[in-house]
C-alpha cells in the first residue's frame, strides 16, 4: 500500500486515536499569552480521580498505546502521579507537557524511575527575555531548572517543546544546540490562534519570510526534530516535510479537556467542535466511534476555494483550527497559506469578529491585583 493510500485510510478514521491529548486541569501557575486552552484557574467540574481512572480504563480497552497529557499545568493536580502510574500500569504510555515548575530534584528522580514516560518541557525562547515575554516572568529559569534536575536524575531523553513565533524563529539552531546539550530531543510546533492565542496570533505568528525559514530548517533537520506534523501547510513550498500530511482532527487525533469534554483536536476548544463528554453513557469509546461530529469529519472533505490550486495535494488546505479562529471559511486557504491566498480574505475580517474560543479560565489580570494592598480576589 502506498503512503498516499495509507493517508486516505487514515482520513476515514481509526478505531482508536493515535494522538490523544488529555488536559488534566485548567489550573496553571503561568499565564502564557498563547495558551491554547486559556488556562489559569481550576474548573469545579474537572474529572475526579475515579472518573479519570475510568477514562484510562476505556482507553486501555480501546488499545490506545499512549496519551499526551497537558493542561493547564498537569503537575498541579494532587493525583498527578497516581494517574500517571495507573496509566502506565495499564499499558498506556504517557507523554506529558509541563512548564517544569514542579520538577524539583525529588520529583525528577521519581519520574526517572518510571517506564513508558516521556516529558516535554515548554520553552519559547533560548534566552529569558524572549521566553518570558510569552510565558511569563521567571518561566525560563523554571524550565532550565527542571531540565537540570532531569539531567542530574538521568531521566534520559526528554523533549524541549517550542511554539514557533516570529520572535524565536531565528533561534532554531540555538534550540537544537540546547537540546543536544541536555541529551534531549527538540520538538517545534506551530503557533495556533486558539485559546488566548486567538488574541495574540496576529502579533506573534511568523512572517511569510520566516515561514520559508522554518520550512528550510525543517528540511535540513526534520528527521531529528519532532513537529507533531504541525507544519504540513508549509509543504506547499515544494518537497514534503516528514510526517503525515493531513489534518487528523477527529480521525486520528482528539482532545479530552479537564471537564471531560471531547473535542476534535487540542486547538479547537469551541462548541462547534465538541463531540461529547466522557461522562456520557458509553464513555469515551462511544464519543470516538459514534459522535456525529467525528463521523462527519471522517467523510471526504471539500477542497472548496483551494480546489483549483496546484499546491492543494501538498498542503491539504492547512489547519482547520487556524482557519476557524481567524474567521476564515474551513474549505478555503489556511491563514498562513504560503501562496498568500488567504491574505485578502484575512484583511477584510474585522478584528474581534472571528469565533471566540469556547471557554476562558484565565486568572484575573495580575496587574490589578498587585496594585491592591490586600488581595480581595479570593
Amino acid at each position, binding site marked *: *500500500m502506498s503512503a498516499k493510500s*495509507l493517508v486516505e*485510510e487514515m482520513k*476515514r478514521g*481509526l*478505531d*482508536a486515536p*493515535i494522538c490523544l491529548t488529555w488536559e488534566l486541569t485548567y489550573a496553571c501557575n503561568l499565564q502564557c499569552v498563547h495558551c491554547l486552552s486559556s488556562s489559569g484557574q481550576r474548573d469545579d467540574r474537572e474529572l475526579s480521580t475515579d472518573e479519570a481512572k475510568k477514562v484510562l480504563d476505556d482507553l486501555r480497552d480501546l*488499545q490506545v*498505546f*499512549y496519551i499526551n497529557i497537558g493542561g493547564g499545568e498537569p503537575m498541579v493536580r494532587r493525583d498527578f502521579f497516581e494517574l500517571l502510574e495507573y496509566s502506565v500500569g495499564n*499499558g498506556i*504510555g504517557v507523554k506529558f507537557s509541563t512548564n517544569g515548575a514542579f520538577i524539583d530534584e525529588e520529583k525528577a528522580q521519581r519520574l526517572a524511575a518510571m*517506564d*513508558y514516560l*516521556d516529558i516535554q518541557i515548554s520553552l519559547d525562547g533560548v534566552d529569558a527575555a524572549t521566553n518570558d515575554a510569552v510565558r511569563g516572568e521567571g518561566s525560563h529559569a523554571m524550565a532550565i531548572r527542571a531540565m537540570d534536575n532531569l539531567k542530574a536524575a538521568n531521566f534520559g531523553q526528554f523533549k524541549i517543546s517550542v511554539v514557533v513565533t516570529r520572535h524565536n524563529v531565528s533561534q532554531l539552531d540555538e534550540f537544537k544546540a540546547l537540546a543536544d546539550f541536555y541529551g534531549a530531543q527538540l520538538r517545534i510546533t506551530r503557533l495556533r490562534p486558539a485559546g488566548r492565542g486567538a488574541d495574540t496570533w496576529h502579533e506573534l505568528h511568523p512572517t511569510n519570510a520566516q515561514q520559508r525559514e522554518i520550512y528550510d530548517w525543517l528540511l535540513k533537520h526534520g528527521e531529528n526534530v519532532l513537529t507533531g506534523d504541525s507544519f504540513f501547510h508549509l509543504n506547499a513550498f515544494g518537497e514534503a516535510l516528514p510526517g503525515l500530511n493531513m489534518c487528523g482532527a477527529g480521525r486520528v487525533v482528539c482532545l479530552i479537556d479537564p471537564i471531560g469534554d471531547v473535542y476534535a483536536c487540542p486547538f479547537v476548544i469551541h462548541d462547534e467542535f465538541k463531540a461529547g463528554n466522557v461522562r456520557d453513557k458509553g464513555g469515551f469509546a462511544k464519543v470516538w466511534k459514534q459522535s456525529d461530529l467525528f463521523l462527519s469529519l471522517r467523510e471526504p472533505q471539500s477542497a472548496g476555494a483551494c480546489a483549483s490550486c496546484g499546491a492543494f495535494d501538498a498542503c491539504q488546505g492547512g489547519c482547520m483550527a487556524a482557519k476557524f479562529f481567524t474567521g476564515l471559511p474551513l474549505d478555503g486557504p489556511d491563514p498562513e497559506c504560503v501562496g498568500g491566498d488567504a491574505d485578502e480574505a484575512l484583511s477584510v475580517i474585522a478584528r474581534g469578529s472571528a469565533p471566540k474560543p469556547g471557554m476562558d479560565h484565565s486568572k484575573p489580570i495580575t496587574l490589578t491585583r498587585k496594585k491592591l494592598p490586600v488581595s480581595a480576589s479570593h
Partner: protein
Amino acid sequence: MTIALASVLEIHPQVAVRPEAFGALAYHYGNRRLIFLKHPDVVTVVQALHDHPDVQSTLSACGVTQDRWPSFIAALTSLKTSEVVREREITG
C-alpha cells in the same frame, strides 16, 4: 538483515498490535515508534509467528500461497528492522 523462510521469529515483547481496517497499527513501547501493518494478511502472519517453528510453516499455516512469499519475506524484513518482530530463542 534479511529474513529467510527458515527464520524463527516472534512479535517483539514490547510491541502491541491493534487491528485497523487497513491492517493494523503496531506500537513499540521501547523506542516509541508507531508502525503501520498495511495488509490484514501480514497482521495474521505476524500474530501467528509464535505458534509455528519458522517463517515458512507460518506462511503455509496462514494460507499464504507460495507466489506471495517473496513479498511477505520483504514485509517481515522491514518489520524486523523496525523491531516489530525479532528472532525467537529456541528453548527446551
